[in-house]
């Protein structure tokens, strides 16, 4: 039964080969529809809450993914703030703003003419020069000139670009006026102008550390793009546009989108190089083992065909090729040849006994069938278990590798026999088989293996003891494992992106962004009683002494409204205040109507040459009805003005109005409006809430983990300062100047009332760059967004910041209860990382149990089943122990390795235990069997171990760290599990031989 497939292949080799070829062609036909996805955000499924929220935040605050371009000048004494560099930055900014699609679809920059600036048309072609790169771009559908969406609009969101030439600045100008313009409204012509720009930038809390480095050596442009996958092309565009810049102006490009996108593009190159290289290496290795090209074509076919099937299925099913799935080929190839290597190995060793191809194959497959089936099944189980991780690309990866392994097994059972029947002559095998034997004797492998056999038999307890010691050490290592990942660190330290990242984070407050958002928990709470209390309290404070009657009247109205409201059950604050306002106006009419009228009349007088007499004369000369209204007040005023007889003109008018104001400022109506502004203010127009955010920002600054945080409060404080700024008079002494400076500095703060906050915010809403305030606060001022900059994109550091914020929120509850949520790419990485670790752990445990059960079934024994798990347990423990001990971060590739280890190292134990049990039964003695085990069976295992580890070595040459990691650890895994299978297993068998070989099993199946 189990030989049915093989029998068929032996009888109808041509059919089999044809059928396989047709199937492979069908799979290969799927390749042209390949789509690539290099967005690590897709590590989270699209409906993941944090991802949905991330997009909500981006939408709500109009935030985009940024390509960060740093310009660093370390040589000029003024850093980047010199005329030449600033002009270059201005030109680059304009070039980016005026990017458009040319007629041929290639990018074009059409600069409108501007004073002192070059105008004209610049045609660009970003196609790489190297033919290899061009070819790759073509194969992978990557168009380097793709900088436009389907409608032909630039993918650079011009109006959101952050650059000195297009960000707002608010500053003092001549005659105590306020200037609202761009930070670099005009590129400087003199060094003094350049210095002024530097001073302006440093004076704005939103810019220093973000747009301009504190040391003034660097400026960053933040180029917002419509979608992350364009970032590689935008980065290229910037490189092209700055190619002719002098060396002293270094242009560095970074940001998570660029890192991620660049990784994607380089990953394609990796795929196109590593996988074929692995193929070549495996080919050479097999050639060394078997010394015959026509023979080893068979396992190579198995490898290539299973890769083509797996990738074809993936593409055919419509999955995108992601960072994970790009590794399918390289994972699959060495695993796929394993069975074929076993078959060929045995075939050679046994051919001389039969002298007939078909007979030999029947015998070989006959006793290899079960171990091969089980090794394949366990490998499949290991990879398929990844389907239970919550990370879609990992699921896709696991399932497709599992599929590829199944295909490889099927091909080994059918294609290999068919191929041998059809393509290899008996004569040649006879020839080769003999040579093959000699070759074995000649290699250093055999004596080494024999030595290993002797050691594990004689010194079994020592081997086991050493293993236990190692396991304890590894356990300690595992306890020190730190889970961490950072997409920028996927590049080798010498890569442009890593270099840019390092340099820019040294100069700036951080190129990694996260968004911390606050929203009120219950936006519709009306807190009427609380509000009434506040109004009453303020009312008594302000008017209690002077106007007890007015206070009583307004309080009565408040009570009346309260009763009404309870009746209606409504909570319309504005309606209430309107009723109060009307009542208050009536009170005002009683106590100050005359003063208001008088003040108005004075206001309209012509101040030119105004004297006390003329004032009295003009006011008395008004219509009798009007004049009668303020007769008493006028008398009081004139008496008050009598003190300063010499006043006239404007000064007299000012004084007269001041006297009126001393009465009119007691307006109940004004008070009601003030209270309305105060009570109905949304949370983030309330000074207490804004100060709370300010406090959190101070705390974060002192905490040291956050490079910088920016909020609407920073913008508010800066604007309040500039609005309230009073320049000291030119003749002021040093002390006076100091006094002025101190008084001005005090205004660098959140204003004291909601109305004042509201009025300053209105100024910010109408800045030159419209709506830039709304990146930090929603238009209704009910939610705020803190832009957090981190110098490191390590998840570990992001997690620490999250913990820090949590601490603060716990120890300092907000005046109004707030809902806190995080977003931003740096934070998203933390979330999927966390999911991955937990997911990998549970998938590892799950597949461990599955494999254990499979082993117990295979060996029909609990004990043997457990024994089979020993090498992989030892391997996984040691590998992760090493990772912990050397301080390597547990990142995505490392996590995936666990399932690979599980699938591969159990293979060795299956082969070993199977043969060991068979031999022990044949020879009747474990000592004898053990000696035999270290001949042919050990050789086959060793050959496989070498094939797999060498097959992965091309990965070591990769410029991308995750590939390197996989390559390195696979070699290590192979070495460790090879040792564990060939040393620990025989030692354990030796120690436990009385129990394990107790019953001479009668089954002939095994």
């Amino acid at each position, binding site marked *: 039964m189990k030989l049915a497939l093989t029998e068929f292949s032996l009888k109808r080799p041509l059919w089999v080969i044809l059928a396989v070829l047709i199937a492979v062609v069908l799979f290969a036909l799927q390749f042209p529809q390949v789509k690539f996805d290099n967005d690590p955000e897709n590590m989270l499924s699209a409906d993941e809450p944090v991802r949905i929220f991330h997009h909500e935040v981006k939408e709500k605050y*109009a935030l985009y993914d940024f390509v960060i371009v740093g310009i660093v000048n370390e040589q000029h004494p003024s850093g980047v703030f010199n005329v030449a560099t600033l002009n270059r930055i201005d030109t680059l900014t304009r070039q980016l703003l*005026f990017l*458009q699609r040319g007629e041929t679809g290639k990018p074009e920059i059409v600069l409108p003419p501007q004073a002192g600036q070059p105008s004209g048309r610049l045609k660009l072609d970003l196609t790489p020069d190297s033919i290899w790169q061009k070819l790759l771009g073509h194969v992978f559908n990557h168009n380097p000139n793709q900088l436009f969406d389907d409608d032909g609009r630039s993918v650079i969101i011009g109006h959101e670009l952050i650059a000195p030439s297009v960000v707002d600045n608010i500053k003092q100008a001549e005659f105590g006026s*306020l200037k609202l*313009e761009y930070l670099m409204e005009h590129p400087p012509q003199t060094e003094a102008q350049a210095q002024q720009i530097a001073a302006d930038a440093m004076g704005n809390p939103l810019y220093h550390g973000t747009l301009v480095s504190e040391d003034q050596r660097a400026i960053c442009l933040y180029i917002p793009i419509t979608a992350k996958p364009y970032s590689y092309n935008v980065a290229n565009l910037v490189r092209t546009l700055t190619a002719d810049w002098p060396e002293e102006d270094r242009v560095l490009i970074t940001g998570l989108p660029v890192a991620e996108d660049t990784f994607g593009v380089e990953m394609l190159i990796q795929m196109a190089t590593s996988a074929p290289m692995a193929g070549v290496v495996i080919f050479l290795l097999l050639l060394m083992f078997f010394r015959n090209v026509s023979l080893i074509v068979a396992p190579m076919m198995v490898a290539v065909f299973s890769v083509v099937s797996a990738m074809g299925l993936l593409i055919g099913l419509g999955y995108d090729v992601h960072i994970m799935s790009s590794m399918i080929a390289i994972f699959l190839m060495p695993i796929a040849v394993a069975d074929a290597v076993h078959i060929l190995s045995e075939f050679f060793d046994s051919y001389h006994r039969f002298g007939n191809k078909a007979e030999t194959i029947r015998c070989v497959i006959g006793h290899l069938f079960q171990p091969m089936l089980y090794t394949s099944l366990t490998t499949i189980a290991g990879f398929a278990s990844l389907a239970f991780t919550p990370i879609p690309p990992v699921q896709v990866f696991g399932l497709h590798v599992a599929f590829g392994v199944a295909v490889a097994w099927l091909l080994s059972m059918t294609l290999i026999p068919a191929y041998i029947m059809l393509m290899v002559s008996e004569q040649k095998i006879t020839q080769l088989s003999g040579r093959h034997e000699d070759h074995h004797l000649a290699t250093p492998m055999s004596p080494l293996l024999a030595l290993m056999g002797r050691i594990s038999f004689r010194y079994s307890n020592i081997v086991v003891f050493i293993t236990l010691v190692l396991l304890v050490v590894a356990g300690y290592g595992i306890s020190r494992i730190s889970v961490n990942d950072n997409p920028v660190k996927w590049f080798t330290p010498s890569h442009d992106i890593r270099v840019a990242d390092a340099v820019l984070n040294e100069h700036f407050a951080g190129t990694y962004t996260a968004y911390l958002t606050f929203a009120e928990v219950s936006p519709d709470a009306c807190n009427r009683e609380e509000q009434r209390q506040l109004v009453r309290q303020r009312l008594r404070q302000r008017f209690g002494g002077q106007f007890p009657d007015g206070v009583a009247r307004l309080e009565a109205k408040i009570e009346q409204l309260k009763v009404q409201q309870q009746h209606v059950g409504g909570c319309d604050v504005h309606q209430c205040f309107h009723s109060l306002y009307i009542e208050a106006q009536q009170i005002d009419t009683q106590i100050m109507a005359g003063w208001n009228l008088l003040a108005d009349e004075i206001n309209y007088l012509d101040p030119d040459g105004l004297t006390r007499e003329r004032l009295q004369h003009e006011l008395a000369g008004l219509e009798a009805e009007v004049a009668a209204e303020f007769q008493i007040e006028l008398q009081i005023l004139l008496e008050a003005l009598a003190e300063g007889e010499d006043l006239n003109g404007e000064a007299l008018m000012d004084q007269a*109005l001041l006297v009126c104001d001393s009465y009119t400022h007691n307006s109940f109506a004004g008070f009601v409006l003030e209270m309305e*502004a105060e009570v109905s203010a949304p949370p983030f127009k309330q000074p207490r809430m804004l100060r709370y955010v300010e406090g959190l920002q101070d705390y974060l600054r002192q905490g040291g983990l956050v490079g910088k945080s920016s909020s609407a409060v920073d913008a508010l404080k800066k604007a309040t300062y500039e609005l309230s700024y009073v320049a000291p008079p030119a003749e002021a002494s040093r002390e006076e100047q100091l006094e002025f400076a101190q008084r001005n500095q005090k205004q660098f703060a959140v204003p004291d009332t909601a109305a004042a906050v*509201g009025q300053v915010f209105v100024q910010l809403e109408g800045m030159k760059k*419209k709506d830039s305030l709304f990146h930090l606060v929603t238009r209704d001022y009910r939610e705020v967004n803190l832009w957090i900059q981190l110098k490191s994109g390590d998840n570990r550091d992001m997690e620490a910041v999250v913990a820090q914020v949590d601490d603060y929120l716990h120890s300092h509850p907000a005046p109004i209860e707030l809902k806190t949520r995080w977003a931003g790419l740096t934070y998203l990485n933390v979330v999927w990382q966390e999911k991955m670790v937990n997911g990998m752990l549970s998938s590892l445990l799950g597949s461990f149990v599955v494999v254990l059960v499979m082993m117990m079934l295979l060996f029909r024994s609990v004990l043997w089943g457990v024994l089979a798990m020993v090498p992989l347990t030892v391997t996984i423990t040691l590998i992760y122990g090493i990772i912990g001990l050397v301080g390597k971060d547990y990142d995505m590739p490392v996590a995936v390795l666990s399932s690979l280890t599980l699938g591969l190292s159990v293979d060795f134990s299956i082969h070993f235990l199977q043969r060991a049990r068979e031999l022990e039964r044949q020879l009747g003695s474990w000592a004898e069997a053990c000696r035999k085990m270290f001949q042919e069976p050990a050789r086959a295992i060793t050959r496989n171990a070498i094939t797999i580890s060498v097959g992965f070595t091309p990965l070591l040459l990769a410029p991308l760290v995750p590939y390197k990691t996989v390559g390195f650890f696979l070699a290590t895994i192979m070495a460790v599990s090879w040792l564990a299978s060939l040393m620990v297993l025989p030692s354990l068998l030796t120690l436990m031989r009385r129990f394990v070989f107790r019953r001479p099993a009668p089954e002939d199946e095994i």
Partner: protein
Amino acid sequence: MNYKHLKKMIIVAVLLLLSTTAYALTADEVITRANQASYYAGKDGRATIKMTIKAKNGNERVREFTLLRLNAKNGDQKFYTYFKAPADVYKMAYLVWKNIDRDDDRWLWLPALNLKKRIAPGDKRTSFVGSDFLYEDVSGRSPEEDVHAMLSEEVGLYQIENIPKDPGSVEFSRYVVAVDAATFLPMRADYYDHSGQLYRQVEALQVETIQGFPTVTVAQAHDLVTGSVTRNEFSNIQYNIDLNPRIFTERFLRRPPREVK
């Protein structure tokens, strides 16, 4: 008879020809009259404006203010803007002196901070209090700044293309304005950016004749890039109300004139 008749016909034809040439205005003339109609009606005027700024996400901000305007010599004008709502900006005021031959003068009064501040001349094509209208939409863009060309003249609308003389100073490469041939009010202006994309539209949605002056009573500005729309509804419109020129001085920032209360 035929000769006489023919003569008559020729005279009529000549007269017609003359009259059409007399009425065929040049683009410059249309723009001058449009400027006059939309910004200079009467010798002064007043209106209360309810401004609704609606963001793409549906959020609405409403502002209410009264605007006083006084025509001065040589096309100069003075504007006084007094805010009434929302409560937090109550009594906030702006004073603008529009000067034809030099930069405008601007002052700002923030009552809650007891603060009067002069605003230095700057780009007039910036948002008016955070809305989609620009300062230039409120006070008018000088016809001198653009080159005007008549695109078409149909169904009572002049379509006029305006190309800035100094393209570096503005964010548009050109704009096309549709001027009503009867009232000379600009009914719609389409702004195109430097890559030729339409990105901004200003429209007069409703026109009424008040005291004999055709007046836009509902106007709308649409920012096609951000999806934000601002609607201005004018009420209490009055012309020729004999405004005291002293209202347009700094003194009236602190104590607003009766005309706006």
